[in-house]
């Protein structure tokens, strides 16, 4: 099971782009990279998933370099409502193991 490492916390201001990097040095060939968002007192919510290169949806972009040993979640023009904990998951989708996550605080 690939272990992930993320920054514990990040601060940003409204309107800025936020990039959260996740390190997963021992990612397996079949592993996908998935990000979830969790607001206080709520269950996590799926943001995006990718295998390689770049994936974009209406919420975020996910950048994965060729060696796949890291990935970057990019949130364009964050707002106060993006204040949450962001989790990077790598490995067996049957188990959905969460790490400690990155606590993003967005200031006005």
């Amino acid at each position, binding site marked *: 099971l690939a272990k992930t490492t993320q920054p514990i916390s990040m601060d940003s201001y409204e309107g800025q782009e936020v990039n959260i990097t996740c390190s997963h040095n021992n990612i397996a060939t079949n592993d996908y990279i998935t990000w979830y968002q969790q607001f206080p*007192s*709520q269950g*996590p919510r*799926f943001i995006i998933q990718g295998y390689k290169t770049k994936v974009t949806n209406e919420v975020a972009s996910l950048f994965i370099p060729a060696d796949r040993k890291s990935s970057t979640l990019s949130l364009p023009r964050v707002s106060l409502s993006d204040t949450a904990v962001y989790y990077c998951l790598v490995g067996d*989708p049957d188990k959905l*193991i969460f790490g400690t*996550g990155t606590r993003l605080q967005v200031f006005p």
Partner: protein
Amino acid sequence: DAGITQSPRYKITETGRQVTLMCHQTWSHSYMFWYRQDLGHGLRLIYYSAAADITDKGEVPDGYVVSRSKTENFPLTLESATRSQTSVYFCASRGGTEAFFGQGTRLTVV
């Protein structure tokens, strides 16, 4: 209503009592999961299930029992509750890429 629901939302129980947390999903998703989240920490997987009658241990299964006789239900039982099991419990289901989580059950063991 379609979705995943947990009950009860809040529960206070005494040490040593048995308590069951319920989880119901309406999508017929194959996979279901139980997590606990202690205050200020991440989610830890307790048990998961790939299909009806198939369950497996997660990261922290001790003190918990699950069953899955029907696809839509995945109850979690604390056989003899301890104070260390005070936590917020989340249930989730997954049919494809995305997992959907319930609102959580806040359990306090006194």
